[in-house]
């Protein structure tokens, strides 16, 4: 049994100095994913069989571009946090775990920048 007070236990945000930030951001992005994924599914379905010119013309609309960008940010953030937990659960070697965690962060960041670059390029005109 801990003799520490509840206040004492939350001060300093635990051993990782991160508190519940990871858990909370997983929920925040889960909630933002809901409307954004509905938008994404509608966007994809309405462009099935569309030519590249039609896709580019749609993304030229600022609302579509901004919603697409928000979707990619929210989804990539959520999946980075999710895979981080999977890695922490199953990858036990100290070095390989660190490498996997770094690869997860770098890969999702690269995907995000690539997606945003593509969206902005289409939106601002090719």
């Amino acid at each position: 049994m801990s003799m520490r007070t509840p206040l004492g236990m939350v001060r300093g945000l635990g051993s990782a100095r991160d508190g519940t930030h990871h858990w909370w951001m997983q929920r925040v992005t889960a909630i933002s994913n809901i409307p954004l994924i509905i938008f994404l599914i509608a966007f994809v379905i309405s462009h099935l069989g569309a030519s590249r010119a039609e896709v580019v013309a749609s993304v030229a609309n600022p609302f579509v571009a901004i919603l697409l960008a928000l979707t990619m940010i929210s989804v990539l953030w959520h999946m980075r946090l999710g895979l981080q937990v999977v890695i922490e659960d199953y990858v036990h070697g100290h070095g390989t775990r660190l490498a996997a965690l770094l690869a997860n962060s770098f890969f999702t960041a690269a995907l995000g920048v690539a997606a945003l670059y593509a969206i902005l390029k289409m939106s601002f005109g090719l």
Partner: protein
Amino acid sequence: MAELKKAERPLSPHLQIYRPMLTMMMSIFHRATGVALYAGVVLMVWWLTAAATSDEYFNIVQGVFGHWFGRLVLFGFTWALVHHAVGGLRHLLWDTGRGFDLPLVEVMAKATVGLSVVITILLWVIGYGVMS
């Protein structure tokens, strides 16, 4: 010295011998679909970058996704996405401290499977309707 008594406390489940339960499989499946969606998002970004690059490249990617195997992968992607989303709603409910009643948990698990299959098929029916 007294005889050492064998521990009868509940031990952590060994997955090889533990009787599979629906809620346990759903938990595993939620994580598995999450990992699968990682690959799905890579495909999504691939499609976006192709659309931003050139007609030729876009047509190649469209050809891959239009192939029967590409469509099979996209169908799996859709199901994983819908399943993870519907399952995620359960998790958000549990996060509020509600919905831990065991019969309700069972019903929600079954509803997640049923809803995810129905929504996925519905989306593909709409998709094929849009294309034809």
